[in-house]
């Protein structure tokens, strides 16, 4: 009788913990007007390597190698150009260009591959939850490494070429484009 009561209590405790929160079907987050000119696209590849030694009470370790690709676009926000940033003097125009920024960051799920897994001891295989966490860390790492690339400089140079061509097509003979100093750039690439 005592055993039966104990088992019932344990079952009740375990089952009551399985409650899951309600999720919504589709939710519209935000529609925002922008005016960004994307001028440079980088395709990047990375091998994500995680060696999971586990907790102190686990026996054995797990290793995983994932390969992924990311497509990053950078450009300048034309809406940030103020009235005072454009000066027209006859056939000559001077424009102050806004700082370049990362416009989009895309890691195609179809291009994510598990290259290798190694599980030993009493450890369980990598689940999709585990892989998802590893990929999130991989994304963070790629975003961090972006700062070491020339993507923003190239985006700015290409935007300059576009602006010059644009105004020349409009009939201006001399187009002067000023860039934003590098120390005034927004370095937050985790937009």
């Amino acid at each position, binding site marked *: 009788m005592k055993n039966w009561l104990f088992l019932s209590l344990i079952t009740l405790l*375990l089952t009551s*913990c*399985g409650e899951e929160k309600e*999720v919504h*079907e*589709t*939710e*519209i*987050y*935000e*529609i*925002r*007007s*922008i*005016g960004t*000119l*994307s*001028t*440079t*696209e*980088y*395709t990047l*590849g*990375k*091998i994500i*390597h*995680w060696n999971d030694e586990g*907790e102190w009470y686990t026996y054995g370790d797990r290793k995983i190698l994932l390969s992924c690709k990311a497509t990053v*676009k950078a*450009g300048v926000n034309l*809406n940030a*150009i103020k009235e005072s940033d*454009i000066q027209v003097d006859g056939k000559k*125009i001077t424009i102050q260009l806004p700082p370049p920024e990362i*416009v*989009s*960051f*895309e*890691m195609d*799920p179809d291009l*994510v591959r598990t290259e290798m897994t190694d599980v030993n001891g009493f450890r369980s*295989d990598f*689940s*999709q*939850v585990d892989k*998802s*966490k590893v*990929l999130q*860390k991989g*994304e*963070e*790492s790629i975003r961090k*490494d972006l700062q070491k*690339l020339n993507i923003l400089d*190239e985006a700015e140079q*290409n935007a300059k070429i*576009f602006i010059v061509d*644009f105004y020349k*097509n*409009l009939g201006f003979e001399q187009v002067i484009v000023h860039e934003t100093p590098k120390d005034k750039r927004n370095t937050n690439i985790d937009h």
Partner: protein
Amino acid sequence: MKLQKIREIRTLIIRLLIVGLIAFGGYWIYQLFFKGPASDEIVLEETPLKVEQIRSILELNTLKFQDEAVVDSVEYYKSESEVLWGTLDKLTDPNQFKHGLHPNGVKRRLTLIVRGELLYGVDLKRKDFQFLPKGDTLTIVIPQPELLSVSINPKGTEVYLENGDWQDYERAGLQRKARNKMIASGERLKLPERAKAPLEKALRTLVKTDKTLIIKFEN
């Protein structure tokens, strides 16, 4: 004499057990309270970032749409014996144990909550602008806005429920489904049409002219 010896050995074993328990308890308390949460953190090995391609593009993005979609895939057991073996299998797997306690006929289930970003605008590389000055007016003809990119990333993907074993291609398939749902939402909201106004605004920012400016979209 013999009884005395047995008592001494028993006392020694009990003392050793107590010392062992104290040591284990101390280690456990240290791991639990003083080692901090760092052990739970995923620390990746340093690997280089490879630049595979650099491309000059010319896209004018005028509308950003952030959306969220829930996608789900369920597979049910087909027979009673499948339920029995499947449940037993789950009960022996620490990751699936909780699903084994509720044998509700579900063999496998994967639910994802995916957040993504859609960018609308015009690709100026494919179709050029046309500047048509005529008398006191300047007409600029530009292409119709279109969907330029859909960003679905790991940071925006949450595995909400994983019951059973799932392969990578199956997860990717669900993410594709979420992507299509977001595109459909964008179309329902007529976002390509709504992307026209900010496009006009961006162009009017750039064009300083004494002439009357007319902005037209290609048919």
